[in-house]
């Protein structure tokens, strides 16, 4: 709970700082007002500005109208509870835990487009698992971006874990192969594989992810057990396409929503949830390994509408 408070504070701090008159919080918008068309229009604007997207917003607004007609919603304040209920219901409880292998090692594959925070998020997961007393091995499958391997290595050094790496410019699948073999040999609890950022439109690179999956599965049947797609909380509607394409090529099992410490509300995950059933598992709220929390719909929605 203390941890949660810390994050909430940080989220809220980020949010209040931005109140430079541009986006007023939903709470202040609805406060003390009757629910009419003008208010509904403002609520719509707020949802769009959180990147919830046109389609999901329209449906949420429809649900408000329906309930308003039925007399269930009359005051502005009711709307907040209504939206919270609606959005929260999108993520049933069972979705949120990390999928574990029946027997160690559990393999986690991190994927996503360029610069969203894959490597940093690995450091976060690693720190968390280490905190629970688990052993972790990392695989540096980003053999493309300048300095990528070194970046992961520095995190590994700081967190006291080992990294399996290959040649700069080499085949990422072969690093995945080596890392899987090493994870088995060392008997670690978790293997986390970093991958290079890639656009979901790059067919060749998407195939490469499929190949990495195959190679890992050969070494450790059933692996990767968790394939996380890192989505940047600032991202717009393009994230829908990312979820779709990474889902297809990499078999994404969960979303790691990074950079929620900024002013973006991350409403994009509502849009994503609307079109796919990929659950959100973690949120990133800063640049250090401690800045991670399990995703909690209630807190997420609260922060989305917070002052």
């Amino acid at each position, binding site marked *: 709970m203390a941890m949660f408070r810390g994050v909430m504070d940080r989220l809220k701090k980020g949010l209040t700082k931005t109140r*430079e008159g541009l986006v007023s919080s939903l709470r202040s918008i609805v406060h003390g007002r009757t629910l009419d068309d003008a208010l509904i229009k403002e609520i719509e604007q707020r949802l769009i500005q959180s990147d919830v997207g046109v389609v999901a917003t329209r449906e949420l607004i429809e649900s408000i109208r329906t309930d308003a007609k039925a007399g269930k919603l009359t005051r502005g304040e009711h709307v907040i509870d209504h939206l919270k209920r609606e959005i929260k219901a999108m993520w049933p409880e069972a979705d949120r835990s990390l999928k574990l292998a029946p027997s160690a090692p559990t393999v986690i594959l991190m994927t996503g487009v360029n610069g969203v925070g894959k490597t940093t998020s690995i450091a976060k997961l690693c720190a968390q698992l280490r905190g629970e007393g688990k052993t972790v091995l990392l695989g540096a499958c980003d053999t493309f971006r300048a300095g990528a391997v070194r970046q992961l290595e520095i995190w590994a050094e700081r967190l006291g874990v080992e990294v399996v790496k290959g040649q700069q410019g080499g085949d990422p699948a072969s690093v995945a192969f080596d890392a899987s073999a090493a994870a088995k040999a060392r008997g670690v609890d978790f293997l986390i594989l970093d991958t290079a950022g890639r656009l979901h439109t790059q067919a060749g690179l998407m195939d490469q992810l499929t190949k990495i999956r195959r190679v890992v599965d050969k070494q450790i049947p059933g692996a990767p057990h968790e394939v996380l797609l890192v989505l940047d909380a600032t991202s717009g509607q393009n994230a829908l396409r990312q979820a779709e394409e990474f889902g297809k090529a990499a078999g994404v099992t969960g979303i790691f929503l990074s950079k929620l410490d900024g002013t*973006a509300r991350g409403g994009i995950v509502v849009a994503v949830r609307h079109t796919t059933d990929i659950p959100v598992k973690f949120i990133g709220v800063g640049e250090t390994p401690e800045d991670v929390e399990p995703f909690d719909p209630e807190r997420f929605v609260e922060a989305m509408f917070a002052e």
Partner: protein
Amino acid sequence: MFDRISDSFSGAIRKLSGSGSISESNVREAMGEVRDALLEADVQYEVAEAFCDKVLKDALGREVTKSLKPGQEMIAIVHRRLVELFGGDPDADQQPAPPGIMKMSPGPTIVMMCGLQGSGKTTTCGKLAGLLKKQGRSVMLAAADLQRPAAVEQLQTVARQANELPGGAQVHFYAEPDKVAAYGKAVGVAVKVCQNAVKEAKAKGVDVLILDTAGRLHVNDELMGELGQVKSLLSPHHIFLVVDAMTGQDAVQSARSFHQRLAVDGVILTKFDSDTRGGAALSVKEVTGAPIRYIGVGEKLDALEPFHPERMAGRILGMGDVVSLVEKAQQEVSEEDAKKLEAKMSKGELTMDDFLKQMKTLRKMGSMKSLLGMLPGIGSMLKEVDIDEKQLDRTEAMIQSMTPAERSRPDLINNPRKRRIASGSGTDQTQVGQLVKQFGMLNKMTKQMGSMSAGSKVAAAQQLSGSGMFSGMPALPGMGGKGSTKSASRGVKKRKPKRR
């Protein structure tokens, strides 16, 4: 979006085909569609609303309702306003060339990069260095990001890669790796590194010094203060804000904060090689007033292009961009070849050899889809189209089985010749026939596009996309797809606006 706008207007017409004319309220209704399309393209909410107001006024002022082709007229209006939104002059026949990086004497010209985490600053430093090197200007890249692990190493590698690019000048690298402080404690130290970099750049007589700063949140006072300090101590000649084109509504908010703090004089939009419409990033111009200077279109260091408002307007409309396509090809083909090709294209005199060469070039350049997406009217169809590489192989084989005469005059290809080509390429006669037919269409199409002024391309793109000409395109060898027929037939229907 293009489809959507024209669809919604033709819809309005259809609804009223009995009553004689479309009314103001129909136009208003259709504007709702425009707005939704803009929001789906991530255009910032308030920008989208204001934009729609303007377009509505234009539309009513120009009496779109009385126009023979209200849909097309509407597209033209939206296009104009988009060009304006992105900082262009919609009335200019030719947009002025975007300004480059100024030359200072004595040097160096100081460029500071800034932006959120992961937006592409470091990569863009390398790209700018490459661009300057090509112009014969020497560059120094200075590592002022002491926060992100291995950021210094990353820039070092980028500097080395940039130095390997063509051009007469040198790309230097400056860093103080020992200053990489314990994580999170590097504030202030980076300012000193920047000052030292200026000294070093002066000593080396470098033309342009580019400072690669750490990514930061616009709400982080301490780190924003650091940039403010660099600005006041070094007075950089350019401050570029690097924005990820995939960003959503928040782009405007963060850009506004950076701008308030630093008065950035240019924005660089990265990752435009994705399929993002980039509406949010493009709204940045409207909100900050800072012009968009360059767009990043790939991870490699040569993937930086000057920003053209007019072309971007086409992109956001989904109309495609013939000019960019030709220019892309130009980089691969020699200048001279490209000129010849362009001339041939505009006359509809493309030969099979040219086609083969183009196809090979395109394939070498990678994503066929993204390139074809630049062709008017094709972008939206491609969503549902799978590009079949094997089919492309077959097409290549067919052309290679043609005689030189056949390649330059495909109309020579009669049935016996088709048989011969088919057996030579391991295909069948129908496939060869199809290729020849499609090729004819391609020539017709490029001819039409080539002879048009920028303005009329807008209307023409729409006309073409519905004329049935494009209905063949998805079926062009190598591009088969479930969606193709659907899109095509939709296009054809759309093309018959019932005159009242």
